C-alpha cells in the first residue's frame, strides 16, 4: 500500500463536498471547498455564480434593482470609483457613469449545462450504482471483496469490454492502490503531476464522487482510491490520456464590447453630439476600473443590497417589554416558522421564539417500534446520546409491534413477488383488482385514501410513551442543555405554558421528503428533540440546578412538545398524556390559536404554491397525501436572510417566510458565549441551506437535481435523471422553480445581528469558518449595538456604516 498515493488521493479530493444520501438529505454548499477563497473564484466548468444579464435588467425594469443599489454595489466592489467628470458640458459622478455602463454593456452568461458524459463515466456510474444499490433486483456478486476487487473479479468476463482490456484487467494487482499506481505509470503521469491528474479526473461524475467521499467517512464500504483504481486502470487499458474536463469557466467578457466602445456609448448617452474624444477617454478611464468581467457580480450584489435595504428598514427598534406572556411558542429558525409565528402573535399576550430545531438536544433516537435509529441532530455534530422511548402500556405496544412485523412480512413478500421474473403475472391476477382500486382512490381522493389507510392500519397508530432523558443524559448535561437554550434564546420570563414545536413535512411519493424536514435534525422531523427538550425543562432536578445559575422557571410553567406539519400547517401537541390537569385549558387555548393561525398561513402560502388557490385551503392540505403532487410545499424557497436578535425587532413585520429567525438577548449573554454558539452553528447551517438553494437555482443541471419527473431512485442513496449517469446533487427544480421560471430568488445570506459590535467582531476574528464566509463574500453581516443604534456593515477592515438606500420603490 502506497501511503504517498493515498495522500495524493486525499489531497486531490480535498475540495470535494461529501454528499449525504437522499434519505437523510443534508443541505450543503456544493462549492464549500472554495469557501477559504473569494466567492468570485468559485466558478468552474458548468457552474454559474450569477444570473443572466437579461434577468438582472428585467429586475431593474420592475424596480427590484434601482440605481441606488447599483451605486452602493459599485462603491463596495470598486472603492476607487469616486469623483466627478464633465462629459459634453454635463457634470456627472464616476459612479453614475459606471451605472450607465452596467446597463448597456453586453456580457455573456456562463452556461450551466451538464457536460456530456463520456463512455467511461457511463460505465463507471453503472458499476458504482450496482455496487452500492442497497436493494437491487440482482445483487452484485463479490460485494464483500470491496469495490475494486469485486469489479476486477467480474470485469474479466465483462463482454462489453474488448478482449485485450479484459486480459489487462485479469492481470491487475488485487489492491486498488497498487492498481492505481500501475495505471499512473502506464499512462506516463509524472510524479509531480499525480495530484493534479487525480483532481481533474475526480471532477467527472461529481455526484457519485461526492457520495463516495461521504460513504468512505461514514460507512467505509467504498473509498475514492478504489474508485480511482477502476477509473485509471480502464484508462490505461484503453490508452486514454487523462484530460481536464472540457469547457473551462466562461468569462463574462468574452462577448463584451471594447473599452473604447463602452466609453463612447456611455459618453454619448450623457452628452449626445457634444461629446469629443477627450470626453470618451475620460469615461474609459472610469470604466477601466470596472471591467465587464466584474459586471455579473456587481449586478448580483445590487440585487442583494436592495433586499437588505428593504429588510433593514422593515426591522423596527422596539424595546423589550417585561410583562409575563400567557403563552410562549418556541419554533425552529427555519423560515417556514416565521409565517406561523407571525399569525400566532396576532393574539397580544403570546410570545414566540426562534431556536435551532433540535432544541439543543443532539440525539440518536430509537422509537419503540422502529427498525433502526435516526441521528436527530445537526450534521455539524456527532451523535453521543442515545434517546429511546418507552410506551406506557407495554402489552399494547408489544401487540402493535407484532402487527407491524406481520405487515412488514406481507409487504416484503408482495415486493418479492412483484420483483420476480414470472411471479408478477400471478400477483397481478390475484391482487391486481385490489391494488387497482387503491390506486384509483389514491389518485382521485388522496385525503380519503389516507384516512382509510390510517384507520385500517392500527399498527401505525402512535401509542402513549415517554422519552428516556434520564438514561440519555446526566443531570449536569440536562441542566447545561437547558441553560444553553435559555441563554441562546434570551427568554427572560417564562409563561405558564411554553410549547416547543419541532417541524416535519408530510408528502407521498417524494424522494426529497427529507429535504423538507428539519435541517437542524439531520433531515428528520424534530418531534423527538422537542419531546426530549420539554422533558428536560419539566424535570424538577433540572429546574433546581438552573435556579442556582440564576434562571428561575416558575413552578406553574409547563413545557409541552409539539410538531409543526409544514404541508398542512397543523401544530400537533405531543405526549398529551403528560399535560397536567392544571394546564389542559391552556393547551386547548393554544390549539384554538394555532388552528386560526394555520388557516391564515395556509391561505397565505397558497398564493405562492403552484396550482393552489387561497380560496381552497383544504386542497393545499390534501397535497400531503397526493402521490402525483410534485409541489407538496415550497420548503425553504425564497430564503435570503437570517436575523439574530430579540423578536421585538421583527414582531408584526411580514418577512414573507424568507428569514431564519434566531432569538437572542444580549442582556442574558454578557460574555458572548451564546452568540458565538449561534454564529458558529445555526448560522453555518443556515448558510449551507442558503447556498444549496442558491446554486440549485442557478445551476439546475449541474449543482441541482433537475426535474423530479424523470428521477429514478438508487435505493435510498440518491436519484438519477433517467436510467443511468451521475448521481444528482442538490435540490430538484421543483424546489426552486416552475416551468422555466425561478420562484426562488438566488441571494447570498444576509445576516442581521443586534448585539455589541465589538463582541461580534471578536467572535468573527477567532473563528475561521466565519472569517472565510465573511471575508470572502459568501455571506454578508450587518449589525447594530442595540435597538436605537445605526446599522453597520462588517468588512475585513472593520465596521462601516451600512449603506441603506432605496430609490423609487
Amino acid at each position, binding site marked *: *500500500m502506497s*501511503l*504517498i498515493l*493515498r*495522500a*495524493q488521493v*486525499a*489531497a486531490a479530493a*480535498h475540495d470535494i463536498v461529501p454528499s449525504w444520501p437522499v434519505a437523510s438529505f443534508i443541505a450543503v454548499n456544493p462549492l464549500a471547498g472554495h469557501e*477559504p477563497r473569494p466567492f468570485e473564484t468559485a466558478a468552474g466548468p458548468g457552474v454559474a455564480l450569477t444570473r443572466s444579464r437579461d434577468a438582472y435588467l428585467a429586475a431593474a425594469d420592475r424596480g427590484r434593482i434601482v440605481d441606488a443599489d447599483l451605486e452602493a454595489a459599485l462603491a463596495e466592489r470598486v472603492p476607487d470609483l469616486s469623483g466627478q467628470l464633465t462629459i459634453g458640458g454635463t457634470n456627472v459622478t464616476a459612479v453614475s457613469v459606471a451605472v450607465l455602463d452596467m446597463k448597456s454593456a453586453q456580457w455573456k452568461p456562463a452556461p450551466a449545462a451538464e457536460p456530456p458524459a463520456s463512455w467511461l463515466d457511463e460505465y463507471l456510474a453503472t458499476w458504482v450504482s450496482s455496487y452500492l444499490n442497497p436493494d437491487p433486483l440482482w445483487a452484485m456478486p463479490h460485494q464483500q471483496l470491496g469495490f475494486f476487487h469485486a469489479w476486477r473479479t467480474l470485469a474479466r468476463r465483462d463482454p462489453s469490454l474488448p478482449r485485450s482490456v479484459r486480459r489487462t484487467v485479469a492481470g491487475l494487482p488485487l489492491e486498488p492502490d497498487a492498481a492505481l499506481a500501475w495505471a499512473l505509470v502506464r499512462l506516463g503521469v509524472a510524479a509531480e503531476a499525480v*495530484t493534479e491528474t487525480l483532481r481533474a479526473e475526480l471532477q467527472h461524475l461529481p455526484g457519485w464522487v461526492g457520495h463516495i467521499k461521504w460513504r*468512505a*467517512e461514514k460507512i467505509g464500504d467504498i473509498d475514492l482510491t478504489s474508485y480511482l483504481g477502476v477509473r485509471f486502470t480502464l484508462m490505461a487499458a484503453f490508452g486514454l490520456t487523462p484530460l481536464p474536463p472540457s469547457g473551462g469557466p466562461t468569462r463574462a467578457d468574452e462577448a463584451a464590447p471594447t473599452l473604447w466602445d463602452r466609453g463612447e456609448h456611455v459618453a454619448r448617452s450623457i452628452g449626445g453630439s457634444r461629446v469629443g474624444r477627450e470626453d470618451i477617454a475620460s469615461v474609459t478611464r472610469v470604466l477601466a476600473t470596472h471591467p465587464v468581467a466584474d459586471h455579473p457580480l456587481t449586478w448580483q450584489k445590487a440585487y442583494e443590497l436592495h433586499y437588505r435595504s428593504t429588510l433593514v428598514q422593515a426591522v423596527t427598534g422596539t424595546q423589550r417589554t417585561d410583562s409575563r406572556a400567557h403563552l410562549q411558542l418556541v419554533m425552529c429558525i427555519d423560515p417556514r416558522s416565521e409565517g406561523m409565528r407571525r399569525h400566532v402573535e396576532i393574539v397580544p399576550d403570546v410570545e414566540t421564539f426562534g431556536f*435551532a430545531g433540535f432544541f*439543543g438536544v*443532539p440525539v440518536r433516537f430509537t422509537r419503540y417500534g422502529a427498525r433502526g435509529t435516526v441521528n436527530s441532530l*445537526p*450534521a*455539524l*455534530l*456527532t451523535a453521543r446520546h442515545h434517546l429511546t422511548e418507552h410506551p406506557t402500556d407495554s402489552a399494547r405496544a408489544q401487540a402493535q409491534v407484532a402487527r407491524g412485523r406481520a405487515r412488514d412480512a406481507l409487504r416484503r413478500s408482495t415486493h418479492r413477488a412483484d420483483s420476480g421474473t414470472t411471479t408478477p403475472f400471478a400477483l397481478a391476477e390475484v391482487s391486481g383488482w385490489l391494488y387497482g382500486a387503491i390506486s384509483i382512490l389514491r389518485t382521485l381522493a388522496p385525503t380519503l385514501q389516507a384516512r382509510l389507510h390510517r384507520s385500517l392500519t392500527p399498527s401505525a397508530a402512535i401509542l402513549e410513551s415517554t422519552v428516556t432523558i434520564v438514561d440519555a443524559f446526566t443531570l449536569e448535561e440536562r441542566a447545561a442543555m437547558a441553560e*444553553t437554550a435559555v441563554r441562546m434564546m434570551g427568554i427572560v420570563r417564562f409563561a405558564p405554558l411554553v410549547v416547543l414545536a419541532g417541524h416535519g413535512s408530510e408528502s407521498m411519493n417524494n424522494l426529497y421528503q427529507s429535504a423538507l424536514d428539519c435541517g437542524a435534525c439531520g433531515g428528520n422531523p424534530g418531534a423527538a428533540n422537542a419531546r426530549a427538550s420539554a422533558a428536560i425543562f419539566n424535570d424538577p432536578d433540572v429546574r433546581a440546578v438552573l435556579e442556582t445559575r440564576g434562571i428561575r422557571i416558575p413552578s406553574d410553567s409547563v413545557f409541552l412538545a409539539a410538531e409543526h406539519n409544514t404541508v398542512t400547517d397543523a401544530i400537533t401537541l405531543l405526549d398529551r398524556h403528560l399535560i397536567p390537569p392544571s394546564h389542559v385549558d391552556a393547551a386547548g387555548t393554544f390549539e384554538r390559536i394555532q388552528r386560526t393561525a394555520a388557516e391564515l398561513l395556509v391561505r397565505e402560502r397558497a398564493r405562492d404554491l403552484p396550482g393552489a388557490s387561497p380560496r381552497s385551503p383544504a386542497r393545499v392540505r390534501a397535497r400531503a397525501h397526493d402521490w402525483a403532487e410534485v409541489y407538496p410545499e415550497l420548503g425553504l424557497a425564497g430564503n435570503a436572510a437570517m436575523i439574530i436578535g430579540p423578536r421585538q425587532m421583527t414582531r408584526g413585520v411580514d418577512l414573507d417566510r424568507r428569514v431564519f429567525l434566531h432569538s437572542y438577548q444580549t442582556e442574558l449573554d454578557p460574555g458572548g458565549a451564546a452568540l*458565538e*454558539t449561534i454564529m*458558529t*452553528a*445555526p448560522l*453555518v447551517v443556515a448558510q449551507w441551506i442558503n447556498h444549496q438553494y442558491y446554486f440549485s437555482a442557478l445551476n439546475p443541471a449541474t449543482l441541482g437535481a433537475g426535474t423530479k419527473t424523470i428521477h429514478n431512485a438508487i435505493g435510498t442513496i440518491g436519484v438519477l435523471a433517467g436510467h443511468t449517469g451521475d448521481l444528482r446533487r442538490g435540490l430538484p427544480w421543483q424546489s426552486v422553480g416552475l416551468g422555466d421560471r425561478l420562484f426562488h430568488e438566488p441571494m447570498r445570506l444576509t445576516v442581521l445581528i443586534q448585539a455589541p459590535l465589538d463582541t461580534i467582531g471578536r*467572535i468573527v*476574528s*477567532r*473563528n*475561521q*469558518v466565519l*472569517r472565510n464566509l465573511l471575508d470572502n463574500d459568501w455571506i454578508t453581516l450587518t449589525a447594530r449595538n442595540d435597538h436605537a443604534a445605526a446599522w453597520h456593515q462588517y468588512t475585513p477592515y472593520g465596521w462601516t456604516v451600512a449603506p441603506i438606500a432605496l430609490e423609487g420603490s
Partner: protein
Amino acid sequence: MTMNNLTKMTRLEVVVPARDAPAIRELITSAGATGYTSVSGVSGIGHHGQHSGALLFNEYDTLTMLITVLPPDNAGELIDAVHELLSTSSGVMFVSETYVSRPDYFQ
C-alpha cells in the same frame, strides 16, 4: 533524567481542520501505527489567525490534533505522506524524537 530503560521512537503531531482529520487518521493507520490520540477542538493562533477551540454545536469547523508514535524506521513514509497531504490544505505537522517505556505497544 536517564533514558537508559526507554526506547527511542518518532512522534508526529498533526493539527488540521476537523473535516480533514479522517484522511490523516487513515494515513496513520495505513502506516502501521498501533494507535493515535485525537484531541478535538484545539485552540490557538497560527498561520490562518486565531482559532477559538471547542464549539458547543459545531465539531466540523474546529481544529483537531492527532498524535501518534511509531518506530523511527516506519515513520519516514508517514511523514512524507502527511507532508504531501498538507501541501494543498491547511494544517501543521510537528515531528520529534520521543522515548517510550513499552516499545512493544508501538510496533
